């Protein structure tokens, strides 16, 4: 049986996979470690230069931790575990202008 002429076309979106929803979370641990390593190293070099060991090192580690936590928060605030297997949301309608 043919569908009526005024029937809306069915757009079959591909369901979002586990990797696409949770995959970016693979970044969290590395970003945390890398940011602490970089800021810790900068603090260590600053300590060597100004002879204030270990104050800048500790400051650097905390700054790295702050960057890592901020990045984690940015990922987690958009996390929706129920999105796995659900179709991706339709794209926003284009402005006629």
């Amino acid at each position, binding site marked *: 049986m043919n569908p009526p002429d005024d029937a809306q076309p069915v757009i079959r979106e*591909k369901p979002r996979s586990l990797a696409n929803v949770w995959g970016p979370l693979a*970044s969290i641990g590395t*970003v945390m470690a890398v*940011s602490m390593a970089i800021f810790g190293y900068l603090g260590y070099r600053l300590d060597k230069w100004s002879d204030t060991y270990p104050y800048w090192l500790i400051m650097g580690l905390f700054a790295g931790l702050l*960057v890592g936590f901020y*990045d984690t928060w940015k990922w987690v605030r958009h996390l929706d575990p129920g999105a796995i297997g659900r179709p991706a949301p339709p*794209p926003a309608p284009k402005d006629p202008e």
Partner: protein
Amino acid sequence: MITNGSADVVLEVDDAVQSVILHHTADTPFDPGSVMSHLVPPFLTHHGAMVVLSALVLLALMWFSVRRRPAAPVPTGLANLAEVFVLFIRDHVAIPNLGEEDGRRFTPLFCTFFSFILIMNLLGLVPCFMVATSNVNVTGGLATITLGFMVFGAMIRHGVTGFFSNFAPRGVPWPILLILVPLEMVGLLIRAFALTIRLFANELAGHLVLFSLLGLILVYGLRALPVIPLALFVYLLEVGVALIQAYVFTLLSAVFIGQAYAPEHG
């Protein structure tokens, strides 16, 4: 080798194992032999040679995949396999993160990332070859391409002013912005650096574990034979890691570039 029980001999074997592991993982100048050595540039190292070899293998594979066969209009064999990879990257990596238009435009870049990293990782598992992605310069070069798109691509898309204004989320009070803007700027660089370190560390660690396990045979002789199945297991694990790391690098590149192109989603 350690039958006489001497501590000095054990130490010598330990040093030998250590040098073998370093020889197989550290980058050294590439010298193919007396005849061929005049043909290779002096700055070429083993990892550099593996990058070139991987590129040549990838070019050969792609040439065999895309060459036209009038008798078979439907792709078969290698072309069919390449199509599976390309469609997977386009439909599950590029388009979900960059949208339909940009996703299709960026698909060649992500396909290149995925296949190039995969070939480098897999060639590194072939005996007598080295894994180029265990060199931080190689992974850093790849991540620099991603960073270039995150910075200059976004500048071209949003303009220089628009690019920098994206560091300041809307509706945030200015005292908080004093903290947030530097965090956003640093976060951009840290993400690219994390891409570098993730691939480099995973590949290097896998090969170090593999060589360390096999090195136990040199130190303990026949008593260490049970490590062979374990080393085989780690080797198979490395095949999986090669695939997963190529995919993770490609996926995260797509996510980062997508966030730079559409910061309201990031």
